[in-house]
């Protein structure tokens, strides 16, 4: 099933008199349960594409359907709702609320959902934390957790709303290689369980976990091919 369909996507910034084409006609389709990595050198439009796919931004022109919904022309609050229900973010720097427990951090998307009772919220958050093997760290604050554990809390926060896609931006960038592999194993596991995952990275061995890699250059898709893993 087609989850994301992007057609002729442009994002153009006006910097004084010069026009910066951050995205210069990108077309892309992502199936459900795909495991995709987006690569590219800095300035390639990698971040811009991620922001658009994450519904944090709107394109200058082009079509963008997510789950059959046209996202390209939405306003701020509609985008916020889409982000809340369809997307789970995992950031390089974890971005947890430092003064709140794991539980409260994971609950936060459910609070903004606004339709879930406090009791259910708690249950769902604990379930998500258990899925990332942190069932015993529910009441710990981020500064009481290791880097890998923090990132797993962040993954639990991304999972808790049952999003259509999990969007991970350099999820191992702040972790040592061993912990990084643990997190990647977690993503692999989530993919096996049926989640759609988009990895944004500049590290080949991280990208190799995905089954498909999209390489950007100067705002255009240069390469879109299956990885080793995808070919198997």
């Amino acid at each position, binding site marked *: 099933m087609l989850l994301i369909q992007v057609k002729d996507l442009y994002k153009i910034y006006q910097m004084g008199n010069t026009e910066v084409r951050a995205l210069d006609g990108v077309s892309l389709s992502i199936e459900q349960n795909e495991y995709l990595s987006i690569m590219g050198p800095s300035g390639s439009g990698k971040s811009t594409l991620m922001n658009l796919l994450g519904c944090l931004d709107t394109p200058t022109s082009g079509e963008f359907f997510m789950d059959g919904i046209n996202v390209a022309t939405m306003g701020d609050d509609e985008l*916020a709702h889409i*982000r809340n229900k369809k997307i789970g973010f995992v950031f390089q720097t974890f*971005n947890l609320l430092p003064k709140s427990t794991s539980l409260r951090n994971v609950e*936060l998307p459910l609070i*903004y959902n*606004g339709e879930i009772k406090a009791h259910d919220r708690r249950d769902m958050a604990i379930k998500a934390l258990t899925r990332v093997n942190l069932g015993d760290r529910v009441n710990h604050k981020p500064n009481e957790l290791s880097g890998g554990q923090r990132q797993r809390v962040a993954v639990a926060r991304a999972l808790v*709303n049952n999003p259509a896609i999990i969007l991970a931006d350099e999820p191992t960038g702040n972790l040592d290689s061993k912990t990084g592999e643990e997190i990647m194993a977690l993503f692999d596991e989530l993919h096996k369980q049926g989640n759609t995952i988009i990895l944004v990275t500049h590290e080949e061995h991280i990208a190799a976990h995905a089954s498909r890699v999209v390489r950007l250059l100067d705002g255009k898709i240069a390469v879109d091919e299956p990885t080793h893993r995808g070919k198997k």
Partner: protein
Amino acid sequence: MYIRTTLKTLNDAFFMALEAIHDNLLRSILTLLGIVIGVFAIIAVMTAIRTLESSINSGLNIFGSDVIFVQKSPVLQIGDHNSRRKYWRRPNITWDMVLELRDRMTGSEFVSGQDGTGGKTIRYRKESTNPNVGVQGVDEFGLEALNHKLEYGRNFIPEDIEYNRRVVLLGSDVIQKLFPFQDPIDQSISINGIGFDVIGTLEYKGEMFGQSQDNFVIVPITTYLQYFGSRWTSLGISVKAPDSESFDLIKEELIDQMRIVRGLGPMDENDFEVTSNDALIDTFGTFTAGIKLFAGAVSIIALVVAGIGIMNIMLVSVSERIKEIGVRKAIGATRNNILFQFLLEAVFLSLIGGVIGVLLGIGVGNMVTLVMKNVAPVIPIDWVFIGLGVCSFIGIVFGIYPAYKAAGLDPIESLRHE
């Protein structure tokens, strides 16, 4: 649905506000201080005035009801040396004037003359009081005019007044001191060495403004003038109207007749002052209005300064939490979610200060009741709500700009912020 979401947001924001206050404790306390002072000032003053008012309205009935009081100079003298000299130069009110006025007044229930002095020593056998007992001189209407109640014995009769009899009524403090276990009636006492026969006792009155109202004795006015009067003695006159409807009429008649008694020409200014309980309460009212106004001004200034402090702390809070705002937006917070969060934080911050101010204000305001006995503590509910309402208002007014700023942040920029 929407209400539930709002309640959740409120609940969420409340705990986040507590967290933010806890994280920046010193800064928060300094900010709250302004709110506390502002609310404290108005609540303390209002509480104190409330207790005073309730004691005034019940206890300040120095004169009986429907009684008009005439004397040479005003009860409360406000003004410089010159105006005081003006009152002082007026001729004294004499007992003869009282008698003449009594003859002339037709509509009044009674016309009574009285005066008082202090610092006397009362002796009974070997017992003696401190030299601080008041002596009042009255006629047969004096008890009613001055709101005294006879407990045992008899009131003065016209003959006591006519023949300057040395008879006396005792206040309850004096009885307690000199006759703790004995009926004082028909006993002989002395006032500064002059012998008097006790003919009656007076009911306990209690304290006002921390002063006993029972440490005195009463003698016939004529006897009083004979032994305790001087060339400076000027009597007060109490005139009772039959009922409150005729009060104003009697007051007019009184002024007319008093002008004749004082021998004033048509163009002369009154050389006497007319007052009543209502007038006294009014005077107290204008006095407290000034205090209220002052406390109000102090409160407003403190609250505005505190409001600016809250705006400042919230702006700092927003700029310190840009990244947090970005994360919240990324995981689905709308503009309103963020706006609410910061607005409520400001309101809670200021309400916490408000509650502290209210509690302190009620506590300190009621200290009046420690000084004055027989006054019940008061909680000015209306002012509590006004105070907390103003706090919420301050929180909203000064919190809206920082909250608006936070809500308008771009999620991508905020996430990138370090």
